[in-house]
């Protein structure tokens, strides 16, 4: 299988968590003998080419970060410009009457799958975004290939190389499955999300971690970025 792969993050490739995840997905796809062609929504210069290619692929994967419970505004802006074919433009669905065969540009409906990743860790945080993706594939005239759902990715861009590798490595196996099956419907992909909600004791532990380790690492990152204010600063308070 040869898939069109779109990084739907508005963040430039270099800093995009989605990009680091996709590296592993694509490497996993190779393990299963599949290939992918990668494009970035953050680079508007690529939009025209993605638009032209979109409906010529049998398999499309859009990987995206959750932005306020749904898809990022920039990705939405791009998708609004896709030339969604009328239903009967797909050869697979077209009633071809003898002698009047029109030359359809499209062979059959693409299978559109998604990889939805987010900052918050628990699966329940991504379900609202996931529901939209299942609606979206229909609106775009595609077959839905399911969504790989995974949180806890905020730190990918902030951590050191070896920790980053640890965070993204599990996606390789998901890439392999995607390469084999062309969708994310398998049990293994569903389980990949992890817990829907942390049990109470984990919440207590994580809550403690927020006040200590996480706070320290955010403050450290801020310092490295040249921040001179408290992270709780209220610049617009009067």
């Amino acid at each position, binding site marked *: 299988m040869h898939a069109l792969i779109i990084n739907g*993050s*508005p*963040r*430039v490739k270099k*800093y*995009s968590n989605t990009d680091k995840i996709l590296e592993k997905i694509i490497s996993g796809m190779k393990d299963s003998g599949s290939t992918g062609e990668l494009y970035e929504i*953050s680079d508007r210069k690529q939009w025209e080419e993605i638009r032209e290619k979109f409906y010529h692929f049998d398999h499309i994967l859009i990987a995206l*970060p959750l*932005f*306020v*419970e*749904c*898809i*990022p*505004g*920039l990705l*939405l*802006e791009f*998708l*609004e410009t896709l030339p969604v074919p009328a239903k009967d433009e797909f050869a697979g669905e077209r009633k071809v009457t003898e002698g009047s065969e029109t030359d359809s540009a499209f062979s059959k409906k693409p299978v559109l799958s998604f990889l939805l990743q987010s900052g*918050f*860790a*628990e699966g329940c*945080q991504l379900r*609202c975004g996931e*529901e*939209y993706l299942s*609606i*979206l594939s229909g*609106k*775009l005239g595609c077959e839905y290939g399911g969504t790989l759902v995974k949180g806890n990715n905020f730190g990918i861009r902030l951590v050191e190389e070896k920790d980053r590798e640890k965070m993204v490595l599990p996606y390789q196996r998901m890439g392999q499955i995607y390469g084999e099956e062309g969708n994310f419907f398998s049990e293994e992909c569903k389980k990949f999300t992890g817990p829907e*909600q942390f049990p109470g004791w984990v*919440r207590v532990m*994580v*809550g403690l971690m*927020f006040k200590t380790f*996480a*706070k320290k690492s*955010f403050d450290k*990152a*801020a310092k490295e*970025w*040249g*921040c001179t*204010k*408290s*992270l*709780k*600063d*209220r*610049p*617009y*308070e*009067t």
Partner: protein
Amino acid sequence: MILIVNTTTDRTITENLHAALEQNGFSDAGADAKKEQKNKKGNNVYEIVEAGESRISPCIGCNYCWLKTPGICSIRDDYEEILKKMVHADQLWVISGTALGFMDHKGKNIYDRILPLATMYLHFKGKQMRHYRRYKQKMDFGLIYSGEAEKAYLERWNGRAALNFESRSLGVFSKEEIKEAVTCMH
């Protein structure tokens, strides 16, 4: 204060809204500000921002508003004025066009760019992980849409987005339901 941001270029929606609000005893902060300053705050005061032709770029996820210039977005465009008003708003109503069953990108950008109102720090609120609000002010969310949309989905989404800011959903209404929307502004 009720902040209403119209991201469409259709002024008839805000004209209708304006009329319905006046009828229900609300007062326009923009108009009153010229007369008297005293009415700027309070529950029955509203302000309409026409943003249909404003320059509002999408969020690019740079995280500066959390980690480099806390509370300030690195994109200096027409959104800054809206953000400053949000700090004093009890309610945010976005009027948005629709696309692909959802609100369109101009509407969504208003929410994506809202991150400066939260801080980087995290906590559990009830059973949900949340960012702390930067300001004390709580702002409930309402949505008015123009065009075809999956309304049930928009309702679910609006509820979740509000929850992120520890506030309530005031409901989702099509532009034909302005009167119903106004009853939720009290």
